[in-house]
């Protein structure tokens, strides 16, 4: 009986550790929309690489609306139009390349490589 309990406790501990590690690996990344440009840490970005499971939070810092979308086969989404101060997330759950744009401002383009 004790062996079973011990084994059970070890298994649960392992599960929690592994899942905890997995959660610790999945990151939250912020990409700002500012001056009709995508910025990360105040630097203009046109291409970034993230890990499978990461979430990008698209924060609107401009005093007008943006509408982020992608029609890539890998990840299709339309975040809708949202105002300054709001942020909407996208989790990248499959590996590959996703092309992201603002529907309103087509010069805003971001290529996300998910590895």
């Amino acid at each position, binding site marked *: 009986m004790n062996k079973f309990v011990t084994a059970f406790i070890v298994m649960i501990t392992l599960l929690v550790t592994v899942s905890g590690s997995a959660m610790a690996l999945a990151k939250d990344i912020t990409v700002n929309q500012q001056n*009709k440009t995508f910025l990360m840490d105040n630097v203009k970005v046109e291409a970034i690489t993230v890990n499978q499971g990461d979430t990008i939070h698209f924060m609107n810092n401009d*005093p007008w*609306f943006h509408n982020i*979308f992608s029609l890539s086969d890998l990840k299709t989404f*339309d975040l809708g139009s949202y105002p300054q101060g709001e942020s909407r997330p996208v989790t990248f759950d499959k590996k590959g390349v996703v092309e992201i744009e603002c529907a*309103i*401002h087509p*010069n805003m383009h971001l290529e996300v490589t998910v590895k």
Partner: protein
Amino acid sequence: MNNSTHQTSTGNGLLVAAITALFLLAWGTSFTALAAKADYLPKQKMRIPKDNQLTPERIELGKALFFDPRLSDSNRMSCASCHNPSLYWTDGLRKGVGKGSQTLKRATPTLVNVGYSRRLFWDGRAKGLEAQALVPLKSTIEMNQNIAELIRELSAIPGYVELFAKAYPDEGITELTIAKALASFERSIVSPYDSPFDRWVAGDDKALSAAAKRGFDLFDGKARCSVCHSGQNFTDNSFHNIGLNNDDDIGRYEFIKVQVLKGAFKTPTLRDITRTAPYMHNGEYQTLDQVIDHYVKGGVDKSNLSPDMKPVKLSRQEQADLLEFLQSLTDEPQPVTVPVLPN
């Protein structure tokens, strides 16, 4: 002296000052300018493809092609038929006119400063001037030209053979070089950036009337025009549904199926706006007063309105000031010499 009375007076004074400061901050913040005056200085560099750098020879060839009605199947229509330099590179009509005098779907946009635009047509479907140039040429409802036949025709004209050889040596007369030449000429159609507004931005305080200056403050502040009409050419080159009566024209949504783009069209320039009536992609408004009224109402068909479009409360005086500002964006007419076409 009664200390408690003194302290109460001082406390009241501070409170009044704080409330006044907060009020002024809120007032100023609510009408904060969206852009600085300097944002309208003509500093932007035109993006030109590496394989089509501007040369006088390319502009000369492009100009000949632009004005040449032999580019159409009927030999009666040239690019300049609709983009008429005498009418500020548009045609003064509510909608464009195509083959056989048929009315087209949308208004002819001006070509002033078109070289600064990356996405062409009202719906932005062409990326780059080279991609756009041949579309009206080939369109069966516009110039209706067969390109292979056009190449044969041009190749039989010694003057064109020489012009192409000078402009694009070793590239020949092809669909691509025809497009590149037309694009090169279009890139040369630029404002002198010497309107009264430009002179005011450059530092001449007397260049604008007091009313026009008030109009600029409204344009950049309460009226929020510069959200879309931004930068030196007064366009963000982006796509918005501003609540016009679009009928069945879905605009950019035809090419990109994202809800916000249904009925969205490209922001046009406001330069020379007093000379390029009628206004909007459908030529709906004949006067700038009608345009201003449209924005005061916050649009007419609000079924898929851009969230940036909201009614704007403008008094009659404010509307007059805004109009006077818009009038200050027109340059002196730039006469264009019409080329003698090659034979």
